[in-house]
């Protein structure tokens, strides 16, 4: 459903719309006041009019303090409203389904936990929180789904996350909204929100080479990580299962740049593991923690 008008199709999106409508109403009120007074004064006090102009209001602390503090109070209320929802947009629910996103000039590569992959398209289940764990292989992109009222920049060299819970099945635009070079406008596609059953059916209809976690174990072995992290060695390295609770972005730094935390025994894997493989490794590590 890409036509107009469209309502927000996510739990937080509906709340974003309440905030937007409230601000629109407040703006209408202020515009009516300002333009109304402007018009009334312009007519009543036009040069040719004989309106009474005696005793004009001198400088008035009451007026100045009055409109300044009224403005402050309203602004503070709007700040709190916007901030409250923003904080909740930042807090990913524990049971969210993780989906991995890699942006590159000029396409989106998506990986589902069971290994299904898609390009410039995203299939997600209805009524369940979904977490997008995103990175870029080159410049800054931005993963935006207007119908769900969410967007977030996708930077190279780090993970950015955002989450949503869709409330209405349908097809929605996916845009890159951070200017990323020549074909910026072509870097998008469709997000398909489908019922849990349809989503399961869609997943099983897709080709996979195995779950992301099992592919991640292969990456783990290929890079020789098991030499230290198998939990039996004498290296003092933490067994892999013990770090499964650490957020992806910290794990990423620990693997690519251990030296930044003063860790000298572990070598840096920066430039040796691609973003796709790194996501598989994350999925493997997370799978050892017994669910997210």
């Amino acid at each position, binding site marked *: 459903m890409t*036509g*107009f008008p*469209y309502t927000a199709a996510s739990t937080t999106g509906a709340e*974003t719309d309440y*905030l*937007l409508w409230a*601000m629109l109403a*407040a*703006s209408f009120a202020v*515009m009516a006041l*300002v333009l109304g007074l*402007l018009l009334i*004064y*312009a007519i009543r*006090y036009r*040069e040719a009019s004989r309106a009474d*102009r005696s005793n*004009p*209001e001198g*400088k*008035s602390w009451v*007026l*100045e303090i009055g409109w*300044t503090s009224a*403005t402050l109070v309203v*602004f503070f209320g*709007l*700040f709190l*409203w*916007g*901030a409250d*929802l*923003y*904080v909740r*947009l930042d807090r990913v629910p524990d049971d969210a389904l993780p989906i991995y996103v890699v942006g590159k000039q000029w396409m989106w590569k998506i990986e589902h936990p069971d290994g299904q992959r898609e390009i410039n398209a995203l299939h997600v289940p209805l009524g369940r929180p979904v977490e997008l764990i995103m990175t870029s292989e080159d*410049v*800054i992109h931005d993963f*935006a789904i*207007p119908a769900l*009222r*969410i967007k*977030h*920049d996708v*930077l*190279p060299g*780090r993970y*950015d996350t955002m989450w949503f819970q869709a409330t209405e099945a349908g097809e929605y*635009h996916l*845009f*890159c*909204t*951070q*200017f*990323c*070079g*020549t*074909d*910026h*406008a*072509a870097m998008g596609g469709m997000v398909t929100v489908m019922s849990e059953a349809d989503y399961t059916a869609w997943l099983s209809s897709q080709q996979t080479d195995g779950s992301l976690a099992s592919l991640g174990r292969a990456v783990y072995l290929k890079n020789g990580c098991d030499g230290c992290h198998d939990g039996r060695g004498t290296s003092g390295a933490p067994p892999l299962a013990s770090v499964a609770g650490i957020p992806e972005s910290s794990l990423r730094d620990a693997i690519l740049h251990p030296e930044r935390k003063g860790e000298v025994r572990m070598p840096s894997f920066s430039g040796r593991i691609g973003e796709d493989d790194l996501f598989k490794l994350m999925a493997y590590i997370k799978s050892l923690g017994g669910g997210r």
Partner: protein
Amino acid sequence: MNYLTNGWTIRSWLLTIDHKRIALLYLGTITLFFFLGGAAAAAIRLNLLTPAGAFLSAEAYNRMMTMHGVIMVWFFLVPAIPVTMGNFIVPLMIGARDLAFPRLNLMSWYLFVIGGLVALYGMVAGGVDTGWTFYAPLSTAFSHGHLVAVAVGIFISGFSSIATGLNFVVTIHRLRAPGLTWYRLPLFLWSLYATSLILLLATPVLAMLLILLVLENLFHIGLFDPTIGGDPLLFQHLFWFYSHPAVYVMILPGLGVVTELVSAYSRKAVFGYKFVAWSSIAIAVVGFFVWGHHMFVAGQSLYTSLLFSILSFLVAVPSAIKVFNWLATLHKGYIRFDAPMLYAFGFIGLFTLGGLTGLFLAALAADVHLTQTYFVVAHFHYIMVGGMVSAYFGGLHYWWPKITGRMYPEMWARVAAILIFFGFNLTFFPQFIIGYLGMPRRYHAYPPEFQIFNVLSTAGASILALAYLLPFGYLTWSLFKGARAPANPWGSPGLEWTTQSPPLTENFVEIPVITEGPYNYPPREGLSRHG
């Protein structure tokens, strides 16, 4: 004899140290840039008539939109009012014979021209396709344009900004006429003073950033590119640390001009003088601490965003104070509807709407949906074009008789003011709606359901383009055929109206002594319009 007839040679213009002649040199230069940037805007709007893009390739479109932004921001909006009306009027308003550093003033114009030519060379020779924001690492590692030339051009012209700011600050401190205390200054000067502080403090940060950008671009030293140890967010922080205060450089002089116009055409002292004066300073100071509101979805920390959000609401308060005080000034005034006042009315409406939509973008969760869409484009054009350009034209018409010694044709000017207002709204109001509906910025092609709004926008832009050509035509005409202007055609009380039109090279025969505030209108009776 006046400053215009004092020397007819090219040399007497190119080597002049008269602030009034330098103002005219600047006026010619920025008018040229305004039409160049406008031509790029016309190409953008025409291309967006059809969803697939009417005639520009992606490469060409991206270069056009970069050129539009670079020219309009650095070579029109930032300098516009300070270097023209500021240069011309500041010494006249404070009863001085020139700015504090006349030669520095001339040098600033040369720097501006050289910077402009270098930047133009870059944009014509191969163009830049990064947008005017030059975000790294796109600009440093992936874009293949003439970024270095453009950056160097902006860097050079930055020194022109710094010189101008310095000149105004020193002039306003040191050269005020006897008796002209700070609270007797016209409010235009308070706003220019605040503007100058920002120019002095923020422009050096831009200069440093441009050096870093060029170094990273040429030698890949690892400042902004994460693959070699840099941080792309560092670029954004430095960029907006300059570029947000720069927004206030663009709008504060406009606020000052409108304050003068509202008073002059309602024949009433500005209501709440001290509040309006200090609100300019407040905007300049708080404006330095809101840059992070450009980065709510960029990946800065949650707490940083919370802080920048509340500060952004705070910086809107002094702007609201100004609007309320303008309205109170109109109350019980003698309001005239000359063209400058029409521009001022337009400004109040468009600036208020631009400010209100800015609140949408300061409210965090609302910004998540609206940022990077056409809503943002509409918002800042309401402030920059609806607001600032209206104030620019309003001021230009108001002081035109003083500057040129000729009256502009009033009827034509009113038609242009009204056309600009309607053309502007038709161009940019639909963009609020498609922004809310999700259309991203900087797209040369777009999904078909957005077309109707883009067609409206382009229709408005054609009216706007025509309306902008009108003043160019009739103002040029008035230079030769306009009625001779008296010293004080508007019956304004300001010092600049006490000297002849156009003024002497020395501005005043005798330096005036000031005994009263700036808006002391004589009693209404017995006052003729062109007295």
